[in-house]
Every structure is written in structure tokens, then in C-alpha cells.
């Protein structure tokens, strides 16, 4: 960031100006009021669900079938004293973490390498085409990715990659139609990678040319100069890109509800290869899928509990990213 001179903050002042400052400041604080309101209202709404379940809400060992629990909550009696709240949300939390982490781990590596390709190795003609294309891909609405996923990739996986034997082996527990967390990770990766590429490309370009020249003049080859100097200097931007992409992945609801099969099931790594094509459903997709149930009070409170978990994760993510960036900034000249 450019250092600002003191004069930018100073300047002549009078009554009108003070009023203007107050007005602008008040408008800027709208965001803060909104966040405070969001946290208070969502948590107040979600509280009964948490307080009735205690630690079992988050516990991996609580057991139970999420979809059955949701049905029970939806069908609970109208009398407030008889509301059903039992919810062991671990499969949903686990699916969210699995899909988000999978997409981020694959996506960050892919985005970094692609950005290096665009900045350094791509032929100039390809470079000129690729940059607008990356921006375009980053702007494609998630529902279009979801549509391609559910109409092309899911049937392909279901018909060609999963054998009938594999389907029969788990038929009593889940159906393997091809809609799975693996497909979700695949499409999510394609969705978030362009966002990261755009940021990392800008950061790699912003590294002072002298730093690269210095290393090249010491006899280092192009790859080594890029990898040891530019990428290292761009680390804060890479972290920022990963945080932004994680936020998108965490909150992606529509696309994932379309391609992950919408079953409250925790994919089990012990199942071998089938693990990758087992259905799942992350938290955000659960909210969208069950939005019609918002008129039933305990069901509504459970959905707000899901939302509050997402809200807390997003806030932690943003603070975590800020902290890591601040740590890294000590070593580099930050381009962002």
C-alpha cells in the first residue's frame, strides 16, 4: 500500500466540512451496525438449538441420522414445550470441512502454478487471451457451474465410473448416483481457482522488477527466480487469495446442493475408492434445501444454528487471514 502523506488527512476545515465528515462516517458505520445486528439476531435465534443439544451438536461421536433428525424437528408438535430439538450436526460440519479443504488445497496449488504460467511462461498471444478469460471464469455464476455439474458430470460419474458392484455393496446405506462430494470438490475447485489466479497474477506482477533482475543476474534460471523471489514476495497476496476463495467455498450453497447428492451423510475414508463418490451435504446447502421449513419454529431455529456456525467460521477465517498476512508482511514488501 502506498504511504500516505499527512496532508491527505489534513486540509482546510469548516462547519460544512465537519458536517460532511459526520455524514460520511455515519454511512460508513452502517456496515458495523449491520454486522452487529447480524451476529446478535442470528445467535439469538439459534440459541435454543445449541442449548438443547449441548456439545452433542458438534460432537463427532454423537451418532444419529441428520436427515431423520431434521424430519423429526420439522414434525414436532405445535406446543412450544414439546418442541423437538435433537440435532447432531457432525456429518454436515464434516462435509463442509471436507469439501472446502479439498477444493482449497487443490485449488491453491493449481492457481499458483497457473498464475506463474500466465506471468512468466505463457507465449504472449496466449497470455493476452488468458487474462480476460480468467476474469470471465471468476464471474460465471455458480448456478451455471451447478447446472453443468448436475447435467454432465454427475451422470458421467454415475454411469461410467461407479461399477454396479460398488453400488450394490452400499445399497442398504446410501445410493451412489454419481452426485457426491468428490464431484462437488471438482466443480468447486474450477469455480474458485480463477478468483485466486486473478489475485496472484496481480501480486506477481507487482513484485519490483529489480528483485527478479537481481536474482537472474546472479545466474539463476527463470523458474528458480520466479519461485524463490516473486512467489515468496507475493505470499501475503497468496494467503489473501486463499482466504477469499475459502470464504466463497464455505458459503457456496446452490451449486453444492445440486451436485453433492443432498444426503446428510458423512463420507467414510475407510470405504476405499467409493469414499470419493459418496454423497454428502454441507451446511450452506442444507439451509437452501430446507428453506421451505422456515415457518416451523424449532426447524427455523435449527437452520439459524447452521447459519451461525457459518458466520463464526467466516469471521475466524477473515481474522486468521489478516493475522497471517500481518506476520508475512514483516518479510516482504506487500503488494496488497
Amino acid at each position: 500500500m502506498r504511504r500516505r502523506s499527512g496532508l491527505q488527512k489534513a486540509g482546510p476545515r469548516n462547519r460544512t466540512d465537519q458536517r460532511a465528515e459526520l455524514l460520511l462516517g455515519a454511512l460508513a458505520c452502517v456496515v458495523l451496525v449491520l454486522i452487529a445486528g447480524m451476529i446478535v439476531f442470528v445467535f439469538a435465534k439459534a440459541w435454543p438449538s445449541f442449548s438443547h443439544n449441548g456439545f452433542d451438536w458438534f460432537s463427532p461421536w454423537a451418532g444419529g441420522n441428520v436427515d431423520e433428525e431434521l424430519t423429526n424437528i420439522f414434525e414436532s408438535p405445535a406446543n412450544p414445550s414439546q418442541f423437538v430439538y435433537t440435532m447432531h450436526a457432525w456429518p454436515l460440519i464434516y462435509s463442509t470441512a471436507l469439501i472446502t479443504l479439498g477444493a482449497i488445497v487443490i485449488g491453491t496449488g493449481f492457481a499458483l502454478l497457473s498464475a506463474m504460467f500466465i506471468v512468466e511462461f505463457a507465449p504472449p498471444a496466449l497470455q493476452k487471451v488468458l487474462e480476460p478469460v480468467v476474469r470471465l471464469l471468476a464471474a460465471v455464476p455458480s448456478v451455471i457451474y451447478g447446472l453443468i455439474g448436475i447435467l454432465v458430470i454427475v451422470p458421467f460419474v454415475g454411469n461410467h465410473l461407479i461399477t454396479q458392484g460398488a453400488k450394490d455393496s452400499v445399497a442398504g446405506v446410501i445410493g451412489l448416483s454419481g452426485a457426491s462430494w468428490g464431484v462437488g470438490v471438482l466443480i468447486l475447485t474450477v469455480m474458485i481457482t480463477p478468483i485466486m489466479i486473478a489475485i496472484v497474477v496481480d501480486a506477481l506482477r507487482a513484485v519490483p522488477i529489480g528483485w527478479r533482475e537481481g536474482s537472474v543476474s546472479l545466474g539463476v534460471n527463470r523458474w528458480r527466480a520466479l519461485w524463490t523471489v516473486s512467489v515468496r514476495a507475493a505470499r501475503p497476496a497468496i494467503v489473501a487469495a486463499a482466504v477469499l476463495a475459502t470464504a466463497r467455498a464455505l458459503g457456496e450453497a446452490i451449486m453444492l446442493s445440486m451436485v453433492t447428492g443432498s444426503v446428510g451423510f458423512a463420507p467414510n475414508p475407510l470405504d476405499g475408492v467409493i469414499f470419493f463418490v459418496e454423497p454428502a451435504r454441507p451446511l450452506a446447502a442444507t439451509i437452501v434445501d430446507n428453506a421451505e421449513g422456515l415457518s416451523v419454529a424449532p426447524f427455523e431455529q435449527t437452520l439459524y444454528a447452521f447459519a451461525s456456525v457459518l458466520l463464526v467460521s467466516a469471521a475466524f477465517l477473515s481474522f486468521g487471514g489478516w493475522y497471517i498476512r500481518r506476520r508475512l508482511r514483516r518479510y516482504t514488501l506487500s503488494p496488497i
Partner: protein
Amino acid sequence: MSTPASESSRTVAKPRRGRRFQAPKLPRPRIPRRDRGLLKEEEVVPWSIGDRIGLAAAWFSGLLLCAIAASIVIYMLVRGLQYVNLSAIGEHPIVQSTTQITGTSGGYLDPIEGTLILTTLGILIALPIGVATAVWLSEYARPAWLARAVESGVEIVAGTPTIVLAIFGLLIFSKGIFGFLSFTAQGGAVFGRSFFIAGIMMSLIALPLVVGSTREALQSIPAHVREASYALGKDKISTIRRVLLPASRKGIATGATLGMGRIAGDTAIVVILLGASLTLQPYGGTPVLGTLRGTGSTLTSFVYANSPAGEGNSPTKAYAAAFVLLVIVILMNFVVDLFSRQRSDPWAR
């Protein structure tokens, strides 16, 4: 690099009179044969295995990116041109019962209108707040702790899942005092779903983009421009209005267009906050106000409803609507490209 000095002295050319001086030709350093294909002339250090793997991986992922981008664009183009018919753009969708899914009748006029209304509304709300926030952060930012709080607040809004924003909006706007924004049922229950409400929540996903690019534009204006304005006796707010904001027009426009792209592409807020009606359902008799208080659909929710995951399940209509949506997004991207290409430094001396 073990070139003996005697070898180089042999090849030095003598400069002749009357000609331009030519640099003496030195012998090239020896390059191991296995590296000759890979190396450029000036690179002397051989590539290690790790470097080669890295280079190969970079090329691989770059080409994979090209392949993915091309296949998505070409696939959507083929499907879109296959299923889109121009007359359907002007027709209202026909709501079918869930038992009878024909998927042939009805157009997508209402979703297109819905997308346009929602995008306009969202950006109209986001622009004043976003620009004011950016100006305050960049020009005033006093007290410092409040500025830092606002800054991280904008960042948190950017990171909040849209589905959370959607159900938060539902919670707030179902309260009685916001009854004027949407449909009120008999008995006083507020529906909490309308274009107004969806537009207000949509403005929040455009807000961080507007703030970010406006701030960037303001900060790229050098300090001497402000000083010149102060020296002419202008106070701060007039400087902002007459000098800084006009100078950062392009940044604001870029942010607004990016924000509109995000609004047009969002589905979660539409699915939850715009009601589930496929056609525009105005509420009340007033022409414009009634539509804004009523429910409807957008292209994104239309695609979702017609995909196998929704109730409609007619992929041909979903493909056609997705194609129209993609065209809108590409146009917006093109506009952003135009803005960024024109940007030159007007303050360069």
C-alpha cells in the same frame, strides 16, 4: 565456465575505422548437450530436476486452465444456441403443476426482468453507501480505531456466505415495522420476501467490491492534486466532490459493474428472499412500487428451478436461461475491461 583466457583472445575482432564499434565476440559458454534444448543463451546454470518438474507443472496447469475454460464456454455456447429461441425471451413463463412436466411452453421474460430489476436496485443501494464508506476511509478515517473497525467490517461482509445474509434478511424484514416492504398476510404476518428486501440484501454483496475499487482509485490520486485544490481555497468536502470523485469515476464504475455481475449471478438470496413465484407477482395496485413489493424470479433462480435439483426439471429451459445469464455476465465483464483498458495516469507530469 572454464574458458581459458587464451581462447577468448583468439576471436576478438579488431575495430575498423569508419565503422560503428562492434562488441568483441566472445566464445559461448559450454552447455551440456542434455540441456541445450531447454536453455536460453543467457542462462548458464543448468536446470535441476526440481526446476524442470516445476516448469512442467506450470505448463500443465496453464494448459489445463485453457482447456477447462474453452470447454465450459464452448459447451454453454453449443447448448445455448441449441435451445435458446428468440421468441421465448419475450414470453412469460407458464407455471406448470409438478405432476405435468412438459418443459416446452413458456419463455423467460419474467426472469430477465427480475434480474434487471434486482441488479439495478441492489447497485442503487450499494453505490451511495459504498462510495461514502470509501471516501471516509480514504480521506477522513478519524478516529483511527473506528476506521480500522469499518475496514474489517467490510472484509467480514465480503466473507459472509450469501445464504447467511439471505436468512438474516428474512429474519429482519419479517418484523412488523418492515411490513411496508413486502406482502402482509391476513392476521398481520409479514411475508418478508420481495424485490425490495432481496435488493437490500443484494446490495451487501456488491458493497465490498464498490468500496474496494473506489478506495483504490482515491488512493491512486497523488497528494499534490489535493494540495493544489486546498491552495485555491477549497475546503475538504468540495475538494472531494469537485476533484477527487470526478477523478475516480472509472474506479467507481468498475466497482459498480463488478458488483452488478455478482448480484446477477447470486442464487441463494433470490431463492430465499424473492419468493418462489416464477412470474412477477406485484403486490398492491401502484405500478412500480407494487412490483418492487411483490415477488418474482431471476435468471439464476429460474435455472435452479428448472435444473434436475429444482421442481421444474426441464434442462432445455435451464440451458437456455443459463446461456442468457452468461451473455449478460460476459457483457458486464467486457464493460469492466473497457474501463480498465482506458485507464491512463491523468496526473502524470
